[in-house]
């Protein structure tokens, strides 16, 4: 039996039953694809050997559509968790992988997603070490949800904590904002538009490692502004640090088409979800060097210092606008909705 020939065109409830059909699916698709000694134990879990500090992060991925411009839910699930582990100042090495599949998902799509996961995991240098596959009835899911939980040793030089942030620290962003969210939005029913906007989903762990290698504890924080966007992450940071944040609108990298799409739908790009970028807070003395290093790195040619922490207006994020005005930036409230009227 080959991996594309399990005798079924679509996933059905039997594939999640825990019986023979489940085992077939696992043997011929999952184990064959990810084939590594951890996973091959085929036990209820896996055993890894660790020594020291281990960073752990979990995320469920529920993006719709599951195939979008620039990627699919599979690579997103790898990159998202790889990046969250990296944001802890750690070096992600292992992932667990749990699917919740809606019956009726074409087997072809499932295989495509599994292949993307493999490719993304290889690219990021992580191994899938344990997993789970559940199938839910039609109408009780949305094609496929993926949970990944990631693990990695904390970088020996890392000392990442919002406690370390002080007034004067600089805020650097690794690339243009709102790309992922607008790529998804471009395919959303009732709001769709044509563009060359692609999701920027990618793994940021090697970039993070390079930064830690060079700057170590002078890097005070990493944070990826995914759901809720840059505005929400910075609002949380202002709140947590009891410091103010000054932002320079002109310094925030933004792709032209992304900007245009936001104009059309009345969305603020600062609220839109990102995937392939992060924010780092660093001591002012190294900010220029950090930007310089990042601009040379393939993952962050458009890195930019977008603002700084200040003691002036604690807990408030203030944007200095293109035309020299000021406004408060508040976190996203509920769901990001297009403003039309």
């Amino acid at each position, binding site marked *: 039996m080959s991996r594309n020939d399990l005798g079924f065109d679509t996933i059905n409830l039997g594939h999640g039953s825990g019986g023979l059909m489940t085992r077939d699916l696992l043997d011929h698709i999952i184990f064959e694809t990810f084939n590594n000694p951890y996973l091959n134990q085929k036990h209820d879990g896996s055993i890894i050997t660790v020594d020291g500090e281990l960073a752990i992060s979990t995320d469920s991925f529920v993006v719709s559509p599951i195939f979008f411009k620039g990627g699919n839910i599979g690579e997103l699930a790898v990159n998202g968790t790889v990046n969250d582990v990296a944001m802890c100042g750690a070096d992600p090495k292992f992932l667990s992988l749990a699917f919740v599949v809606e019956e009726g998902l074409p087997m072809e799509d499932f295989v495509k997603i599994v292949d993307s996961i493999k490719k993304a995991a290889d690219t990021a240098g992580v191994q899938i070490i344990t997993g789970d596959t559940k199938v839910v009835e039609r109408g009780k899911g949305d094609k496929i949800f993926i949970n990944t939980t990631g693990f990695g040793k904390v970088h020996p030089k890392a000392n990442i904590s919002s406690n370390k942030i002080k007034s004067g620290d600089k805020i650097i962003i690794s690339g243009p904002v709102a790309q992922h969210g607008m790529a998804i939005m471009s395919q959303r029913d009732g709001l769709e*538009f*044509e563009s060359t906007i692609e999701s920027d989903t990618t793994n940021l762990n090697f970039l993070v490692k390079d930064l830690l290698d060079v700057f170590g504890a002078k890097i005070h924080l990493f944070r990826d502004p995914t759901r809720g966007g840059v505005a929400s992450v910075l609002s949380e940071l202002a709140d947590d640090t009891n410091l103010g944040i000054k932002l320079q609108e002109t310094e925030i990298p933004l792709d*032209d*088409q992304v900007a245009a799409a936001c104009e059309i739908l009345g969305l603020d790009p600062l609220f839109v979800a990102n995937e392939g970028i992060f924010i780092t807070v660093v001591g002012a003395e190294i900010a220029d060097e950090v930007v310089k290093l990042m601009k040379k790195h393939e993952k962050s040619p458009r890195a930019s210092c977008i603002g700084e922490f200040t003691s002036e207006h604690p807990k408030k994020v203030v944007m200095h606008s293109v035309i020299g005005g000021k406004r408060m930036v508040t976190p996203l409230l509920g769901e990001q909705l297009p403003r039309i*009227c």
Partner: protein
Amino acid sequence: MCLAIPGKLLEITSKLDETFRMGKVSFGGVKKEVSLALVPEAKVDDYVMVHVGAAISVVDEEEAKKTFEILSLLGELEDLNQLPDTTG
């Protein structure tokens, strides 16, 4: 009130009758199909203001310059002569 954004009319995509025309409009490269029913005078290459999926006005290029001309007239625009963006 109401958000309307200028975009360049790239092509007339369908024309059921004189009233129900549709066209593709580019907003800095982002393209949307919009109704041209309210702008019978609009032609390809015009810039139209689009609101909730319908073009509501054709932008007048001459008038667009006036904002900057006033500043010139007032002697305020000496360093801004190259201002109007024509990049699309």
